[in-house]
């Protein structure tokens, strides 16, 4: 479900070409071309990781002189579809506006001490929470982040170390990936946030 406060970014696999009456969108992953009308093109142009759904809807309402409620509804329907097709994805709230506060940068995580790790060499690893019987498969970068959640490394330092260790990780996506990984791992009880004194 899309909500009004959400902020979206375009997937890095997408190229948009705008024309006077709309836009053509090229999806590199499946080599598909999609056609969009002018309104959708405008919405895409504001999908920059800065504007929330609500903000974009009010720009559209002003631009076309339509009621905000209607613009909001159209924008949300479009995002729903774009999200389903993996053309856009929600920006992590921590990364809102592209900047983290100093506190967020230094946020530290620690591993749930009851979780066991099976390292499967170059394939990454497998986490097992014996309390919940939950299993999580980690790819090599996930394993790297997991190992650095030692309650000493802050988020920013983990991201830097990850970039140093894996040169093939696309820089643009690292931050968003690490943040959503940490958020998901915290939600599922594999990691905990270190409380500030």
């Amino acid at each position: 479900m899309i909500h009004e406060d959400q902020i979206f970014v375009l997937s890095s696999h997408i190229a948009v070409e705008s024309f006077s009456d709309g836009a053509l969108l090229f999806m590199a992953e499946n080599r598909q071309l999609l056609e969009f009308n002018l309104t959708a093109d405008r919405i895409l142009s504001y999908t920059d990781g800065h504007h929330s759904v609500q903000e974009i809807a009010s720009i559209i309402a002003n631009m076309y002189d339509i009621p905000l409620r209607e613009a909001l509804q159209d924008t949300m329907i479009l995002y729903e579809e774009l999200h389903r097709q993996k053309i856009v994805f929600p920006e992590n709230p921590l990364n809102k506006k592209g900047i983290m506060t100093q506190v967020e940068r230094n946020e530290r995580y620690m591993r749930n001490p009851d979780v066991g790790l099976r390292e499967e060499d170059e394939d990454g690893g497998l986490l097992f929470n014996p309390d919940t019987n939950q299993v999580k498969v980690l790819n090599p970068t996930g394993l790297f982040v997991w190992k650095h959640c030692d309650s000493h490394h802050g988020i920013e330092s983990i991201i830097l170390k990850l970039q140093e260790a894996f040169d093939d990780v696309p820089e643009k996506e690292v931050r968003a990936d690490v943040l959503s990984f940490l958020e998901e791992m915290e939600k599922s009880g594999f990691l905990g946030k270190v409380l500030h004194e």
Partner: protein
Amino acid sequence: MNKGTILSSPKQIDIAITGRCNLRCEYCFYADEMVARTDLPTQKWLNFFEELGKLGVMRVCLTGGEVFTRSDFFTLLDGIIANRMRYQILSNGTLITENILSQLSIGKRRLRMDSIQISIDGSCASIHDKSRPNSFDRAVQGLSLLKKAGYPVAVRVTINRYNLHDLENIARFLLEDMGLPSFSTNEAMPIGSGCQNAASMSLTSTERFQAMQTLDHLLKRYPGRLTAQAGPQAKCKAYQEMEDARETGIKTTRWEMGFLTACGCVFSTMAVYHDGSIVPCHMLPGVVLGNICHDSLKEIWHTHPQMKALRERRSIPMHKVQGCQTCEWNEYCNGSCPGLAHQLTGDFNRANPTDCYRKFLLEKESNDALRS
């Protein structure tokens, strides 16, 4: 993954934590081992659990002997829990009391339990006690206590000559009177003390066929509530799949036909005896790979020639297996459990004779002919 497709360490270890038992079951497959080996002290096990924790082993299955004869049982359990593992218990149920239950509820002991399995071999004492002497009332009492307290309890019925004709009553007793969601079956094997008592305990092919028919009928009455990994119910399904494959030319996708593929355990599990001996599986007592007191489990898992040989068994086609070369079923068979094959023939690259479909058909035919 390096080292072929082998996991970095086993996911599960089956551990016989004691060779002591308060019963003397007629078919006990562990009887010979119980006499030949001695129990390890507490600390040795705790060290081993620490090793397992470091390897990321996820669960252990605790068996014996009877696990509750160990006075340090809960110390061992806490060692397992401290090393981030879950556990399962196989028990005869006779030593389970209110006191055991209250101990089981302490800390994370209950949370980490996958299941506790109790053996019940009859619907009443006169049948159960024939194979498991003087134990029915206590086993049922233990089972009731566990069930009432909401533990994940399971029941295993070992089909033998004494209870073959009691199967319907057993199902009624367990599923209706006791209200269990399901139970599992297997079959008494001519190994351990079952070896000496083979004649009186093990099923003949005709009896096995009767068991299959009864189980089939029970499955219609209680759909999905009788399960089996081995024994007549599992064999019946496998034989049916062999018949279907031979008739239609379409092989099952549930298991790989035509090769010695029956055992997948060597890719995920290992076992340990109560003296610390490491074996690929409790069904392979003759294949001792080392001892937990002085050998590294991980090393054995990856490099022991016997482990490698057991894994390579899967690539041996049935038409090259001794005794199976000319069998018309060899393209559809998998030779069944290597443990039993090894114990009965001394070679794990052979088919298990007790599960051989050709033998089953021949024996059944001649028995039927004799009768008529």
